[in-house]
């Protein structure tokens, strides 16, 4: 079912540097991470995306070594690190709270990890200087963490976790402590630095925008399991479950049953819509269980006053609510079946004749837009 879209992947496929093999972690009998297997490729930025309690942080903490898996193995560059304590693992983490040592200045914070390796003073000095340059914090070298702003603290934390040239960088909710405006700026800055250094990066976040901006690949986690992995585009355009479709962005979902399933098209009838849904390709499901869900993204759901000429892919409705968001507006259209459908319209003209409250309208979409979901 997954359509291979022409993903502008920043990374060609490379061998896995981190292999998580059937990892399970239970806390007092409750499964926090449930039989997860995951390969992270060398040099990529991988984001674990999920809500709170999805197990994403537990998985990250097991890779860092702060939690011991109940079962399963973790291999880093082919070497089994499952039983290594955190201080012997060649991975470094940037903490959500940054966890900068408050009694040490910026320089000492960055040098801390290098000192543990017993490097010579001149080596440490050179490396610290290099890291300060990398994150543009040279003039703040003597400041204590409490004298820095949130963005500056994050840079120091990043420099500290990169100083030891880890085989892998772990980021725990990297933007969690920043305000929204700074977040967007730091996301791109962080990606630039990580790509400059060329380190493999595993990040954990609950913010889909952050994951989509920063990551080459995303893994969606829910209830301790990885539900889907893929590029941001794969995950958005071809979700494989209702959970993914609803978690990433918003989605209009209609329950229905398959009536026709040919090689070049499929038709699904839904009691929620006035007309059947036609999809421009075969869906190759077993017809024994014709019960499916059809998902259409709001920006692919068009709104018009006139009745569509086609016999498929539309429904009538009444505008229930409009959310004006500046760049675009979201229309909430109530269908005769009672279901509310979202439709996004770009406000490309300053004074346009868009539908307004209580207008009788038609929602429709292209036959390439709907995605069929089995679960």
């Amino acid at each position, binding site marked *: 079912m997954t359509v291979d879209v022409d993903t502008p992947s920043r990374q060609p496929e490379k061998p896995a540097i981190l292999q998580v093999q059937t990892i399970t972690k239970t806390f007092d009998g409750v499964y926090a991470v449930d039989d997860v297997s995951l390969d992270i490729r060398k040099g990529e930025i991988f984001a674990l995306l999920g809500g709170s309690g999805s197990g994403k942080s537990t998985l990250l903490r097991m890779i860092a070594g*702060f939690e011991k898996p109940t079962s399963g193995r973790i291999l880093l560059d082919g070497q089994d690190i499952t039983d290594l304590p*955190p*201080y*012997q693992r060649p991975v470094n983490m940037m903490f959500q709270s940054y*966890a900068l*040592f408050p009694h040490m200045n910026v320089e000492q914070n960055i040098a801390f990890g290098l000192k*543990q390796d017993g490097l010579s003073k001149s080596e440490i000095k050179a490396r610290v200087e290099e890291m300060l340059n990398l994150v543009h914090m040279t003039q703040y070298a003597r400041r204590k963490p409490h004298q820095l702003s949130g963005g500056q603290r994050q840079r120091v934390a990043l420099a500290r976790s990169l100083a030891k040239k880890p085989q892998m960088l772990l980021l725990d909710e990297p933007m969690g402590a920043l305000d929204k405006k700074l977040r967007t700026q730091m996301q791109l800055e962080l990606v630039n630095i990580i790509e400059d250094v060329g380190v493999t990066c595993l990040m954990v976040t609950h913010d889909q925008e952050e994951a989509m901006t920063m990551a080459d690949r995303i893994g969606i986690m829910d209830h301790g399991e990885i539900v889907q992995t893929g590029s941001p585009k794969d995950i958005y355009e071809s979700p494989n479950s209702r959970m993914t479709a609803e978690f990433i962005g918003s989605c209009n979902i209609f329950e229905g049953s398959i009536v026709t399933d040919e090689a070049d098209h499929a038709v699904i009838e839904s009691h929620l819509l006035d007309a059947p849904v036609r999809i421009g390709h075969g869906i190759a499901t077993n017809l024994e269980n014709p019960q499916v869900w059809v998902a259409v993204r709001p920006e692919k759901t068009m709104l018009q006053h006139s009745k569509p000429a086609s016999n498929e892919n539309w429904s009538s409705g009444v505008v229930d609510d409009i959310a004006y968001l500046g760049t675009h507006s979201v229309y909430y259209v109530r269908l005769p079946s009672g279901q509310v459908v979202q439709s996004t319209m770009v406000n490309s003209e300053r004074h346009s004749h868009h539908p307004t409250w209580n207008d009788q309208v038609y929602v429709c979409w292209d036959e390439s837009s709907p995605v069929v979901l089995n679960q």
Partner: protein
Amino acid sequence: MSAFVQRLSGSLGRRTLIGIPFLWLLLFFLIPFAIVLKISFAEMQISIPPYSSVVEYADESLNIVLNLGNYLFLLDDDLYAAAYLSSIQIALNATLMALLLGYPMAYAMARAPAHMQTTLLLLILLPSWTSFLIRIYAWMGLLSNKGLINNALISLGVITDPIPMMNTNFAVYIGMVYAYLPFVILPIYANLIKHDQSLLEAAADLGCPPWKAFLTITLPLSKAGILAGFMLMFIPAVGEFVIPELLGGPDTLMIGKVLWQEFFNNRDWPVAASLAMVMLLLLIIPIMIFHRQQAKELEAA
């Protein structure tokens, strides 16, 4: 109008609130301090009260006679310098011992599961619910030659003759560490409980084994707690009288005992007062250091 009344009463309320502690300090610190200072400059007399007056008004002239003899006398006799030094030394040793004992206890408490901490805290405080004097007397029963410890050791056959513990400096140390331990544990515990555990995780993540993380992260960050515990014990321990009097021996020299003797045995109030003044000056220095440190911590926070 009503706004004016409100503001007046508001500022009045605020002034009263601030005024009460000031009044308290004036009545119970500044005035007694002035009286003691005055006595320290007087001369001993056989009279009631047993000292001369410093300020006299006669024949239209106001005479202020400051007798520095008491202070010079303190310099004259080695006993006093020795008593001060010995007091400071005993207090210092006892405080360091209490820190060595108290820090691990505070650390264990701070690391204990949350539901246990209140119980542990209560256990630390529980002994101080009985009278201080009774608890020190109890140590006499434990430490004396026919006390619990010696009797037990003799009946077990470990020793044949009792170990002399009572009326030695050893007993004084035991008494002091025992009596002041809660004052050392509580500030350290209060400090350790605030520590961000992710700092230790960060240290481990950067390749630092746990024992080293304790030395480089936890210990330096608990400095303020250690200092507070030190001051809370050291300052009263220097002037301690009851413990050396009850548990100490004839050669336990502490300023509290000397002061007592000057006051009650020699009935020399002026010398006793000047002894107290010098002790106060000696203690003010560490108190000032403590306060400056605290101010610095507050600024940093």
